């Protein structure tokens, strides 16, 4: 039963619409991501990859075009629906980790579960499980400021996995890490992809990292200019 996690048709995004400084960032993107894929989007800064990621992550709405996330027509969703969809369908991993200070690692992992309305007991059990999965079982009560960059990113990945999302959106996840730690993070993504069947979309400007994924989409000036299928990380089906 094949179905596509992401189906985007002719996506256009303009800013300052109707004003003098109107700016068109995305010029008609078509993108399809199958369930279980591990793919990457690469491009120089200014190519529109951040804007595309915001649209995919439902943080923003396209100006034109259609977008189906896990079969749901996103254009018809209300703001509250978008919040719920972000909560259930998308797992964000940011370059800057974006853990919530003042909360310990375990509580951070519980946040998406809390917004998803999971009971206190259940979400604690689930969060412990996820922390064990990313190898952070011994640091659950540490505050973000007490963790190293790699540890923080592992907590962030555990958090992204909390509601078992349809897709993990990783925006330059190793950008702030040294290469050794960066490899460890990439290994976690590979593990999630291969052993848990997760769909992962990696946004990066690094060709090296992109080469580890199954498909590479290159953006330039708001258009897809190249698409390569790689041998290594093809879909798990």
């Amino acid at each position, binding site marked *: 039963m094949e179905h596509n996690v992401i189906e985007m048709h002719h996506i256009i995004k303009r800013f300052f619409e109707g004003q003098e400084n109107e700016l068109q960032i995305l010029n008609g993107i078509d993108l399809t991501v199958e369930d279980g894929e591990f793919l990457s989007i690469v491009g120089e800064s200014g190519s529109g990859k951040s804007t595309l990621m*915001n649209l995919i*992550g439902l*943080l*923003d709405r396209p100006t034109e075009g259609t977008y189906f996330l896990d079969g749901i027509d996103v254009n018809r969703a209300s*703001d*509250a629906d978008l*919040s*719920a969809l*972000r*909560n*259930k369908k998308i797992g*964000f991993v*940011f370059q800057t980790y*974006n*853990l*919530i*200070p*003042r*909360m310990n690692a375990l509580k951070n992992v519980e*946040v*998406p579960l*809390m*917004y*998803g309305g999971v009971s*206190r007991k259940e979400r604690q059990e689930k969060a412990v499980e996820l922390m064990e999965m990313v190898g952070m079982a011994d640091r659950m009560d540490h505050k973000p400021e007490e963790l190293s960059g790699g540890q923080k990113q592992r907590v962030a990945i555990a*958090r992204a996995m909390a*509601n078992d999302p349809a897709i993990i959106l990783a925006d330059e996840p190793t950008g702030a890490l040294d290469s050794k730690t960066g490899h460890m993070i990439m290994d976690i993504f590979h593990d999630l992809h291969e052993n848990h069947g997760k769909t992962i979309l990696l946004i990066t400007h690094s060709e090296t990292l992109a080469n580890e994924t199954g498909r590479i989409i290159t953006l330039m000036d708001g258009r897809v200019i190249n698409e390569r299928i790689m041998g290594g990380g093809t879909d798990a089906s």
Partner: protein
Amino acid sequence: MLRENILLALESLRLNKMRAILTMLGIIIGIASVITIMTVGNGLTKGVADAMQSLGGNNISVYIEEKAPLEEEADMETGEEPVFGEVEQTYGMTDDDYFTAEMIRDLCAHYPDQIQAISVEEGIGTIECNYHNKSEAANLTGVTAGYFYANNLTILRGSYFTEEDLDRGSNVVMISDQFAESLFGDIDTAIGATFETMIEDKNLEMKVVGIYEYQKDTMMSSLIMGQGDTAQIYTPLLAARNIYGQESGNQYYWFDVVTKQGVDSESFAQTIQEYLTDTYYRDNPNIQPSAFSMSSVVDEMSGVMGKVTLAISAIAAIALVVGGIGVMNIMLVSITERTREIGTRKALGATNGSIRTQFITEAIIICLLGGVIGIVIGSVLGMIATAVMGALSGPTPFSILLSLGVAMAVGIFFGYYPANKAAKMNPIDALRYE
């Protein structure tokens, strides 16, 4: 979720202790002043009520007053209280104008279920009491059978005047335990003893038939009724009148009705006034009877006190507005500092509503904490103040609930704008905020 919001708010307060305390200060001062004022106001009201009660809260005073010319009637409503035992005589009173013993008896016969006793007292003045070589000044008052009922006096030794004493006007007295000790040395010697006194050139012998317990005045009752007299001694009304040579012992300007348990003294006062007017004073062109209950006076005073207290509290509550602005200010700073957190939460699925709730909860927690501290401080100050006034009282549940409610309302009101600002943040900008 509420639990998380509360824990989160407490945690961020804990991390910024100094800031939290300074922010709360306005709320603390506002609530503390309101609680102090309300406690003191309540203490005063209670003190007054207690004092009035001890003076006979269910008594009805019945007196005669001059009919007011029509244009002054409104003024009479709020006019001065009549001085007990006196009537303003702007025209010559005739014998027909006074209450008589027959009228009083008739009144009692007409309302046997309501009237417990009738009390009349007439102050005679200061007399010099001589016993052996000792001499003490005392204040003599003539009273009737109902007096001890009306004034809640406790008899320690002997008994109250007998019917015979009252009817004949015997020269017998009741004195206080304190006076007994100062004149006779101790109360056992005093009971049954006789002292001499000189009134209007007549040398009289007064026999002590009873000793009552002197009740120490509370600060409140002495404020209202003046300093009580330890040397207050009582004699039958008729005896007092005989001493002063008033042949006609059958005129009263004023008497007290002691009501039976469960009688609504306020409406009964009205009933008495109407009965006496209809029966005896319908045709009197100058004089009308009037009756008022002590409890109506207490109610009136309590009402006025309550209003004054509320008015002063409202002024104190201005501090709360200032405090609220402080809370709003700190909340605005807080959401700017936590822009990234807000963006992250939105990315993780927080709706605008849940972000708003989170920050309003934080504002409410600050205000409630400040409120609780203010209530504690205000209660202590109020208790100290009322203790100094001799009517120790704590804050009422009403004032505590009111303060908590107001603190919460301040939190919601001043927290809403910052919280809404946070809720409406664009998640993309918020996530990138440095």
